C-alpha cells in the first residue's frame, strides 16, 4: 500500500510539475541560471542586425532550450532590427539592401532582472571589462545601453547574475576590425588580450560557482566577407577570368597589383562597381582604397595573432575546467571542405553556402544552430551531460525561421523576378553590390566595433 501510494505520488508530481517529465541530464553542469556572454555572435546578430526573429534562434537560446532552461531572457529588438536588417533583392547583380524605415525598438527593456544573454555586438575582451554605456564615447546610447541597461559592464553583469553556467565566446572583435578594414594596427596586442581574457575568465571563475563553456576565435580567412571577391578580373558574361597575354588580370590594390593570396573585401563591391581597382580600359585604373583590401601579409598577421589569442583562450579554459569549443576548426572546415547534413552540403560560400548571412560575417540560423550543437557536444563531453543536440531541420527548411526578413525578401524577389530572369547569367556569383544604405549599416557593425546602427562610433578601450 505504501509503495502504491509512493508511485501514485511520484506520478502526480511528474504530471503536475511543468518540465519535470522532460528533465535533461546536464551531468555535473547546472543550468538553473544559464548566462551567455560575448559579442555579436553570441547576441544572435544576423545580416547586420540585432533582430528578434534571429535572437530567438541564436545559439545561447538553442542551448538553453535543449538544456531545459525555461526562462532564458534576451534583449529582444523588434523588426527591422538595430541596425535595419539586410536582405537580398535580385541576383543580377546580387544587390543587398537594408530594410527601409525606422529601426526596431527594444521589446524587453523592462525585464526586472538581468538578461540571460548579456552579449553585446561589437564587444572586445577589453570593452567587456570596461564599457557599460556607449554615451561617453559616442554621445548617445547604443547597444551597450540597450543590453546592459546601466547595471554594469558585461563582465560585471555576468557575475551579478549569479550564474550556475556560463558560455563565453569573446575575442572575435579583437581581430575582426583589422580584417574588415585591412588595417592590422586595429589588432589588440597579444599581451593586452592575454591580460584582459584572463581577467574575464578569472573573475567569472572566482566570483561565481558557474561551470563554463568557452569558444575560441575563427580565422578571418574563414569568413566570406574576406574570401568571396576574387583578386582577378572576371568577365561577368562568362564568369571566367579575363585572360590577357595568357594571364589573368589582377585587380589593383593600394600597393599595386593584387596577388592570388590577397583578399578583396566584400565591402569593395560599390568601389568595384565604380571601376576602382580595375585596369584601364575596362575600369578606371585607380587602385582600390586600403579599406577594401586585406593583403596576404596582413591576413597572415591577423591569423597569427588569432592563433596567439586562441592559445590563451584554450589554456585559460583548461585552467578553469571549462568545456572547450574549437570554433576555429569548425569554421576552417566550413571554409575548406564544407560539411554535409543529410546529404545537403553547406559551406562558407557567400549567399549559396547556407552558413553565413548577408553581412558575410555572421551566421544564418542554420549556422547558429550548428554552433549550438558544437557547444552542446563540448558540454556533454566535459561534464558528463546528455543534452540532446538541436534539430537542424527547422533552420534548414522551416519558412518561418530562415531569413530574418523572409517575407520582405519574398516580396522583393517577386517584384524583381521579370528583370532578373531576363538577365539571367552566371555573373551573379561574383558580382555583389551593397547599396549605400547597406554599407552604412555594415560599417556601423563591422568597421567600427561597438557601433549601434544610429551612426555612432565606439572607440576601443585599450
Amino acid at each position: 500500500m505504501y509503495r502504491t501510494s509512493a508511485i501514485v505520488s511520484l506520478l502526480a508530481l511528474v504530471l503536475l510539475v511543468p518540465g519535470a517529465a522532460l528533465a535533461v541530464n546536464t551531468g555535473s553542469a547546472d543550468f538553473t541560471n544559464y548566462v551567455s556572454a560575448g559579442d555579436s555572435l553570441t547576441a544572435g546578430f544576423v545580416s547586420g542586425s540585432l533582430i528578434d526573429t534571429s535572437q530567438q534562434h541564436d545559439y545561447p537560446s538553442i542551448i538553453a532550450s535543449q538544456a531545459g532552461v525555461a526562462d532564458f531572457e534576451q534583449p529582444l529588438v523588434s523588426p527591422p532590427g538595430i541596425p535595419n536588417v539586410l536582405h537580398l533583392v535580385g541576383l543580377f547583380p546580387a544587390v543587398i539592401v537594408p530594410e527601409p524605415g525606422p529601426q526596431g525598438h527594444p521589446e524587453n527593456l523592462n525585464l526586472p532582472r538581468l538578461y540571460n544573454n548579456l552579449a553585446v555586438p561589437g564587444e572586445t575582451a577589453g570593452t567587456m571589462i570596461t564599457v557599460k554605456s556607449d554615451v561617453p564615447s559616442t554621445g548617445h546610447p547604443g547597444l551597450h545601453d540597450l543590453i546592459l541597461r546601466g547595471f554594469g559592464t558585461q563582465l560585471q553583469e555576468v557575475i551579478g547574475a549569479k550564474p550556475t553556467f556560463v558560455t563565453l565566446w569573446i575575442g572575435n572583435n579583437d581581430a575582426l576590425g583589422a580584417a574588415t578594414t585591412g588595417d592590422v594596427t586595429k589588432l589588440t596586442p597579444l599581451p593586452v588580450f592575454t591580460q584582459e581574457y584572463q581577467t574575464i575568465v578569472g573573475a567569472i571563475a572566482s566570483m561565481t560557482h558557474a561551470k563554463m563553456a568557452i569558444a575560441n576565435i575563427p580565422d578571418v580567412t574563414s569568413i566570406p566577407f574576406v574570401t568571396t571577391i576574387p583578386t582577378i578580373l572576371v568577365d561577368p558574361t562568362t564568369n571566367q577570368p579575363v585572360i590577357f597575354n595568357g594571364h589573368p588580370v589582377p585587380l589593383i590594390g593600394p600597393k599595386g597589383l593584387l596577388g592570388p593570396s590577397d583578399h578583396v573585401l566584400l565591402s569593395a563591391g560599390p568601389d568595384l562597381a565604380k571601376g576602382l581597382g580595375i585596369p584601364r580600359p575596362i575600369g578606371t585604373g585607380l587602385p582600390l582604397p586600403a579599406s577594401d583590401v586585406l593583403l596576404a601579409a596582413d591576413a597572415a598577421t591577423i591569423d597569427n595573432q588569432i592563433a596567439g589569442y586562441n592559445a590563451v583562450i584554450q589554456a585559460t579554459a583548461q585552467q578553469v575546467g571549462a568545456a572547450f569549443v574549437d570554433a576555429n576548426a569548425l569554421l576552417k572546415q566550413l571554409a575548406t571542405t564544407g560539411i554535409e547534413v543529410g546529404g545537403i552540403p553547406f559551406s562558407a560560400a557567400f549567399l549559396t553556402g547556407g552558413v553565413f548571412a548577408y553581412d558575410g560575417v555572421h551566421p544564418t540560423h542554420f549556422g547558429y544552430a550548428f554552433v549550438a550543437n558544437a557547444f552542446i557536444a563540448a558540454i556533454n563531453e566535459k561534464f558528463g551531460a546528455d543534452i540532446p543536440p538541436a534539430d537542424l531541420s527547422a533552420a534548414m527548411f522551416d519558412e518561418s525561421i530562415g531569413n530574418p526578413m523572409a517575407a520582405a525578401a519574398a516580396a522583393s524577389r517577386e517584384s524583381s523576378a521579370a528583370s532578373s530572369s531576363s538577365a539571367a547569367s552566371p555573373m551573379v556569383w561574383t558580382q555583389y553590390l551593397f547599396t549605400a544604405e547597406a554599407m552604412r549599416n555594415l560599417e556601423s557593425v563591422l568597421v567600427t566595433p561597438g557601433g549601434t546602427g544610429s551612426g555612432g562610433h565606439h572607440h576601443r578601450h585599450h
Partner: protein
Amino acid sequence: MRRRGALSWKAWGVMALGAMVIAPGTPVFAAGFSIFEQSAKATGMAGAVTAQSDDPATIFYNVGGMAFFDKAGGSAGFTYITETRAHFTGANPFPGEGVTASEKKLQVFPPHLYWVQPITPQFQIGLGIETPFGLQTQWNNPDTFAGRYLSTLAAIKDFDINPSLSWRVTPELGIGAGFIIRKSEVILERDVPQVDPFTFHVVNVAKVKLKSNYDTGYGFDLGIMHKPTPWLSWGASYRSQINVNYSGEAVLFPRSSGDPVFDAILPHLVPYNTSIGAKTEIKFPAQASLGFAFKATPDLTFEVDGNWWGWKHFDTVPLTFPSGQLPSSVIIERWKNSYAVRGGINWASSPAWQWRLGYVFDESPQPEQTVNPLLPDANRNGITAGIGFRGHPIDLDLGVLYLFFSDRTRAKTFAGDQLGDFFGTYNTRALLVSLTVGFHQ
C-alpha cells in the same frame, strides 16, 4: 556419353535467358547486400549445407560437392523476398525527432538454376545461374522523405553464370572449381539540394537518376568436400572477389524550388535533361565457408557452418562523370569483413519426405559511420523451416526464413564524415520463401 535428362545447349540458352530476364532488384537479405538463399533446401537449413552434396545447388554452396554426383541432376526455383517491416525513426540533430519513414514493400523473386552432369565416373561438369548479391532500398514518399538528398532509390541487380568442373579424387574426397561471369546493373536516385540565397532555406532543384548498363565482372570459385566416415563430412568453399566496372548515364530532371527567380536561374547552372556519361565500380566481396555435417542416424543430419565475407574492399564507391558536367564524388562505405554462423537439421521421416529447421546469425559489415538511407544494414538473426519431397524423377523443396534485424541506430558524429549526419534508427523484419523443383535420374 549423352545421358537421359541432359539438356541441349539450346535448352541451356533458353534457361539462362529466362533467368536474365526475371533477375529482379533484390534487397539486402544476407548481411551487406549478399543473398545466401540460392536453394529451397538450403533455405530450410539456414544455409548450413557446405558439407552436403545431395542438392545441385552445391554448385553455389560448395562446388566440391558436385564430385559426388554419379547421375545427372538439376533444379530450378526462386526465393520470394518481402519485408514485413522497414521503418526509420529520426533523431536530432537531423532529420529530427518525430521524423518517420518507411521503405516501399518489396516483392521480388530472385531465381536460381543448376545442372550437374557427370562426364566420367571421376569428373562432372555443371552450370549454375545464381543471384548471390542484390540490393533495393526504395523509400516511400520520395518527394518528402527526409533522406531524399542522400537516396530515394538504390538498387544493385546482378546474376552469376557459373560453369563448373569437379573431380572425385577418391571415393571420399571431391574438389571442384568454377568460373563466374557476373552481370550487374546499378541504379541510384536522389534529389539535389541547394540553398536558396533569398531565404537561406534548402530547396529541391533537381532529381538525379543514374542508371548503369548491365556490365560484367569475372571471378572464380573453389570447393572441397570430404566424407571420411559415413556419419561425418566436411566441406570448404571459396568464391572470389569480383569487381564490376559500370558505365551508364545520369540525368537531372528539373524540380521547382518554389521560387520563380531562383527557378529562372537554375537552368543556367544545372545541366537539366541531359544524358551525362557516368562511371562507377562495385567490389563484390570474396566469400568463404566451412561446414561440418554429422549424421546422428542415417535419417537425421546436423550441420554447422561458418561463413566469412571480405567486405573490407567495399570501402568506397566512386561516381565519376568524365565530361565534368557534374562533379565526381565518392560514396564512403568503410565496410569491414564479416561473418555468419549457421546451423541446420534435416530429418528424413521417410524416403519421400524430409523436414528441416535452422538458425543463422549474420553480422553486418557496415560501420555506424556509414549507416544511412542509401544502404542501412544491420546484424540479423534468422530462423528457418523447410520441407522436401523426394520423388522420381522430380524433387520438390520449400524453405522459409524469417529474419529479425537488430535495430540499427546512427547516433554518433564521426570526423571526416562525407555523407553527413542523418541520425535515427532503422527497424526491419523480412520473410523469405524459397521454392525449388529438382530433377534427378
